[in-house]
């Protein structure tokens, strides 16, 4: 009997765990996707625990990176890890912790993740597309995540802690092998030597410091990292929705909770009915709302949205806050009323302090509403005014422009505030939702 009980407990608990795992798997999986290097999506097997965890997707979404193009004759590239490939593919040189120097070369480098540390001279101008162009300077020093010269650079001196040379064509090798030690069939190694490459090669380097003297020009532009603009607009919309909602809802909830007046029950009933079908009715009213706003010249304006959102949520939030106020004893505000306080004073000094948890719940609802609304924002705003939701939605419609990894990171950044707020007010929301019968 006891053994049977134990067996059942183990079996049922396991089943409960497995089903929970299945139900929560999508959210977990999208989280792991956001932590994988961009473009490394498996198509043949599931990787349940990501091997190479990286925050690069979040960094790219939040901050983006600076890309650029530098043309110069004289340069010093201090690199952690570089590969020099001969343009005729006769050899391949790997440099660890080394330097690549050119004096009379003509080099054109593509750069990414640039941070300029020091610069002397040159005329700077910002072009229409936001990119920056600096022409003719004496000196520039910068950090660069990636440096590559696809066209090949001649006359370079290569030195490094460790240089590994892989030779593909021994006969026509354009470099002196005397400084190298043979370590494999076609591989040679040199430690701490300086090697001159007259014919040069293509350069591809990671983690660099690039120094250039008398450079011709450098062009820089920012890629990605535009989420702040969307986030700012979403935040403005959400916070204004909170403010307006509280202004509209607190007085009416007080009134419904404390005052007896003609039409009270009817209005309450009308509000309740509306909360049940608001989703469908909202879409039904959309055609006219759109027409109305066009006529009033209120489209493409993010400040209009909070008004509409807070107005639409008046019935639900009034019910929610009224329910909370009903649970607070009337003694205090009636005493204040007897003492001759006005209704506004009662709300301000008696009710708001006591009803703070209920008000916070309404505020959180309003914030989530403003932060997550998509349909109206999508309909009314054009690109320069997009909030986060519309930005995400347009990206989903055109997935070629962004990797799923970065997209997952962006979507999680969008969802996180809502998730946190939900946790903060979980109990209220749960009772509120079951009471109002609303979901979604």
């Amino acid at each position, binding site marked *: 009997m006891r053994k049977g009980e134990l067996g059942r407990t183990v079996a*049922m608990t396991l089943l409960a765990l497995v089903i*929970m795992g299945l139900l929560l798997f999508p959210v977990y999986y999208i989280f792991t996707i956001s932590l994988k290097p961009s473009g490394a999506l498996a198509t043949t097997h599931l990787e349940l625990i990501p091997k190479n965890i990286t925050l690069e997707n979040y960094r790219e979404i939040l901050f983006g990176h600076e890309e650029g193009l530098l043309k110069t004759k004289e340069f010093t590239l201090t690199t952690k890890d570089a590969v020099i490939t001969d343009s005729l593919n006769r050899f391949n040189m790997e440099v660890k912790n080394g330097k690549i120097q050119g004096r009379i070369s003509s080099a054109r480098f593509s750069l990414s993740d640039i941070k300029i540390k020091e610069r002397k001279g040159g005329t700077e101008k910002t072009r229409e597309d936001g990119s920056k162009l600096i022409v003719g300077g004496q000196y520039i020093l910068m950090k660069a995540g990636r440096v590559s010269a696809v066209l090949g650079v001649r006359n370079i001196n290569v030195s490094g802690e460790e240089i590994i040379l892989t030779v593909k064509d021994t006969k026509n090798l354009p470099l002196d092998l005397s400084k190298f030690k043979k370590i494999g069939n076609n591989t040679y190694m040199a430690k701490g030597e300086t090697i001159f490459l007259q014919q040069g090669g293509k350069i591809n380097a990671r983690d660099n410091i690039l120094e250039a003297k008398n450079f011709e020009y450098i062009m820089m532009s920012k890629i990605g990292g535009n989420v702040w603009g969307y986030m700012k607009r979403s935040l403005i919309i959400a916070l204004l929705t909170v403010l307006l909602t509280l202004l509209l809802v607190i007085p009416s909830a007080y009134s419904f909770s404390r005052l007896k007046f003609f039409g009270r029950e009817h209005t309450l009933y009308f509000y309740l009915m509306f909360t049940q079908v608001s989703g469908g009715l909202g879409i039904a*009213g959309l*055609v006219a709302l759109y027409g109305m706003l066009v006529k009033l010249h209120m489209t493409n304006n993010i400040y209009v949205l909070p008004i509409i959102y807070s107005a639409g949520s008046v019935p639900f939030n009034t019910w929610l806050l009224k329910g909370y106020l009903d649970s607070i004893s009337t003694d205090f505000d009636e005493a204040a009323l007897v003492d001759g306080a006005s209704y506004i004073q009662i709300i301000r000094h008696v009710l708001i302090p006591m009803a703070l948890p209920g008000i916070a719940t309404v505020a959180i609802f309003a914030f989530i509403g403003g932060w997550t609304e998509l349909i109206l924002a999508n309909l009314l705003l054009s690109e320069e005014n997009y909030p986060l939701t519309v930005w995400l939605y347009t990206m989903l419609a055109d997935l070629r422009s962004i990797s799923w990894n970065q997209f997952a990171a962006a979507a999680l950044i969008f969802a996180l505030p*809502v998730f946190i707020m*939900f946790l903060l007010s979980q109990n209220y929301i749960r009772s509120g939702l079951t009471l109002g019968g609303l979901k979604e």
Partner: protein
Amino acid sequence: MRKRTVAALALILPGLAAFLFFNIYPILYSIYIAFTNAQLGNFPIQAPDAPKLQFVGLENFKWALSDSGFRNAFLWTWIFVATSVTLKVVVGVFLSVLYNNKYVKGKFFYRALLIIPWALPLLFSVMVWRFMFDPVVGPINIILKDIGIMNPPDWTTSATWGFVALNIIEVWLAYPFMMTVITSALQSVPDTLIEAAIIDGANYWQRLTKVVIPIVSKPIAFATILTSAASFQYFLVPFIYNGGLFQDRFLLLYGYMKAFGSARPHYGKAAAVLLIATIVLAAYMLISMKITKLQKGAEA
């Protein structure tokens, strides 16, 4: 007393006025538009060379009833209500019973974690599922390939498989709600009642049908009506998932697309479609409420 009424009205008025102006007025205005020829050129602003905005009577409604797209959307909306509501109730009951079972250890912890879908914005959830169902990199098709299905369905561009996907998504979105309602209903069954039934010699089946189900059925019916209304108003999920693909599968989406998703928008027809959808929904809600109230009367 009259002073009190004036004060109450003054306090209610800002909220009520905003609500009436931005919600009720557009709905009434939409009803008017449904009886006009509002379309590209004459709505919202009349262009000089476009046909004049005018009253056309029941023209748009006649059009809707004979339009194959509308009929399709109407039919499929009800199919979706039937399939998704059945799934939601079955899954909801199953999960509630499982996570209420006395042999399961750590129920509270699981229940707390299981409502996570509720805490996520809908847009995010649909994006997550859009990724799950992605034909190339989505885990669902990867698993299907792993178990030997070489040509797994295209969940994102095939209307049939997409419909299946939408059902799954809706169940996932709604199970926290269903589970919460049904679990609290199950917990409201007094233990003493069940113990009494056991003493009286009732077996498991008898206890279930004679004691548990009569107490639990009312909240479940209530939740079912609410969730079926949500299914009928299904709009955001198909819109985000693949709006173009499902436009003649869901009534609200069909109406929306007629106005905002077409090269030649016809707002009158769109408003008529949405008005019909609203009336059908209202009738459905009234009838279901009546039926459950009738039950209440019969029990009393």
